[in-house]
């Protein structure tokens, strides 16, 4: 553990250098461009309550707002009286149709970030807008509805209901949306066909292989036509070949115009994504094309 400390620290010291190199181009084209603008604009009209940085992003919507707009997100936990900063000022913007990997080692804050992006958790401070909706101040019910409408989750452990058929599993998000039974069935069948499981619709999870289970999960994520697919280590519980299939499926979905955020600790997987954001100690340390971010982080991973 303590041996891990020094490389991390050195990594953090090195970080400002690396991302400047690697993400110079992306930051001008993607997320990077948004922040300086907003913070400079917002500084004049800031009515922040939670902190100076909070106020600085109080701003009118951009002409074409990003699907995901995270501004100076902080999330702190209190563990045994000690304050733990899981996220320490993260600003990322993801546009429609992008495929972004969020990569980092365990403890880097990527899970916390995923929970916030997925509206399962809310930031301690900072502003998060999803598809134009500011999640700050939303009630628990409104967050549930937002998740239902805007986000399709894919989990590492599939999270399928064991006693229900593939079809019933896929229908679940539509149940909570109040879609009538028949329409629900049609949409679920469509989604299962989309992931290539037309022959397995009436099977229960224990009658399916790992890859098929994850396909069911992907179908469930797609069925409500959410704005965002949020995948947490989707290949983590699969062997290499099956994982490859799932990545292939994601590639297809990306090409079809879906926005995908994929959370992983594997630089290899991040390298397959057009864009990757690297987190370390609750901060963004790199943001750029997946191949570059992944390869740049590799030596450090070897070092540990």
């Amino acid at each position, binding site marked *: 553990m303590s041996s891990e400390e020094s490389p991390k620290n050195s990594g953090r010291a090195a970080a400002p250098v690396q991302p400047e190199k690697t993400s110079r181009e992306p930051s001008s084209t993607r997320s990077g461009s948004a922040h300086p603008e907003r913070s400079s604009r917002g500084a004049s009209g800031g009515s922040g309550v939670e902190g100076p940085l909070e106020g600085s992003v109080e701003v009118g919507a951009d002409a074409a707002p990003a699907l995901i707009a995270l501004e100076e997100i902080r999330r702190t936990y209190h563990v045994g009286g000690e304050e733990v900063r899981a996220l320490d000022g993260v600003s990322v913007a993801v546009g429609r149709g992008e495929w972004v990997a969020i990569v980092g080692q365990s403890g880097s804050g990527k899970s916390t970030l995923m929970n916030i992006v997925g509206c399962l958790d809310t930031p301690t401070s900072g502003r998060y807008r999803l598809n134009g909706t500011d999640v700050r101040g939303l009630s*628990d*019910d409104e967050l*549930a*509805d937002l*998740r239902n409408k805007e986000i399709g989750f894919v*989990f590492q452990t599939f*999270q399928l*209901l064991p006693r229900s058929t593939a079809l019933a599993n896929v229908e679940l998000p539509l*149940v909570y949306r109040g879609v009538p039974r028949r329409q629900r069935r049609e949409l679920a069948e469509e989604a299962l066909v989309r992931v290539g499981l037309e022959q397995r619709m009436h099977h229960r999870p224990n009658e399916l292989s790992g890859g098929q289970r994850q396909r069911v999960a992907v179908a*469930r994520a797609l069925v409500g036509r959410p704005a965002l697919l949020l995948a947490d280590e989707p290949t983590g519980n699969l062997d290499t070949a099956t994982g490859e299939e799932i990545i292939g499926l994601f590639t297809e979905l990306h090409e079809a115009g879906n926005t995908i955020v994929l959370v992983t600790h594997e630089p290899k997987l991040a390298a397959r994504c057009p864009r990757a954001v690297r987190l370390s100690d609750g901060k963004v340390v790199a943001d750029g094309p997946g191949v570059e971010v992944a390869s740049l982080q590799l030596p450090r991973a070897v070092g540990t």
Partner: protein
Amino acid sequence: MRIGRAISELVEGLRIGLGALAGNRLRTLLTTLGIVIGVMTVIAIVAIIQGLNKSFADQISGLGASTLYVSKHQWLSLGDDWWTRRNRQSIGRRELKAIEEGALLARAVAPQIGGRVTVSGNGHELSRVSIAGTNAKYLETGAGTLRAGRFLVEADVDFSRNVVVLGADVADQLFPGLEPEETLGGRVRINGRGFTVQGVMERRGSFLGQTQDNNVFVPVTTFQRLLGSKRSMQIAVVGSPEELSKLEDELVGLLRRVRRVPPEKPDDFSINRQEQFLKIYRQLTGALYGVAVGVGLITLIVGGIGIMNIMLVSVHERTREIGLRRALGARKRTILVQFLIESSAVAAAGGAIGTLLGLAVAQLVALVSPLAAAVTPSAVALGFGFSAIVGLIFGSWPAWRAANLDPVEALRWE
């Protein structure tokens, strides 16, 4: 859309809840055992009480509602001054005569003296048959109806004739296979003396396992000639319902005079009414109901705790499922409803089983004991609804816990 959503959530909740129950059959069964036993007990007790009520109502109808019964002792009275009552003078012909002649408000007066005799005839012999000495007015006191022949007439009493009216059981046993009409004019012996059958009574059925048809009626004068005139008689006096209290006052006056009770002394006789039976009976069944309700409540609480326990386990086991559902857009309320449906379904199922078993137990009790059993639909609905409510109440805390799980924590739970 709102309503559609509410409905589809409810249906989903029902499906999940019942699915979970079906998935854990043994556990579900064990969980509901408490409720089953509770409901079974209550239903069985209530069925027996209702059965009692029914046969009691039949029985009480044998006592006229507007009839006063003059007797030496107060009915159903125990304890305090039995010693003084024990030494009371018997009630006999003197009192009967006084009432017959002096009670202006009386519509009918019938004496009753009872005993046990042996009745034989037609080659059969019956022992311990109850015999009543009475007069022609007996039927007017509401104590029964005649099936065949005629009842005692005044002349029978005046001339102390050896004529008898048979109870239904006695007629059946002495003259098996014969219609009541065919037994008329038959000869029977009562304690060795010959009697002519003059009438047969309508069957009255049994009360608390005691048949009420194993009896014979003879003229009161014949009774006294045969069995002695010392025993105290009871005198039934029928009045009009509105003037029953006045009649009672009149009787008290008459009896005190004829029995020479000094003014400062209390009455040395009692005037009883059907109401007294009702009162005692209500106290008795009230206590039974109290026991039933008490036992039922305790077992339902125990059963409810069992349900709460198993629901907490169920919530715990399905933490990840709850997390998933929350992630997919289930609101807290939806999760709450899901678990409430589950717990009340378990309890209601237990209630249904308990109701069936309770009815079976009541029937069994009715078969092997003198107690009767009757069940009204309301008792069944009560058992069923009550247990569902128990499920709701005891399921609410586990359901609340489920609904308030943090989705992030729940999803990560192993």
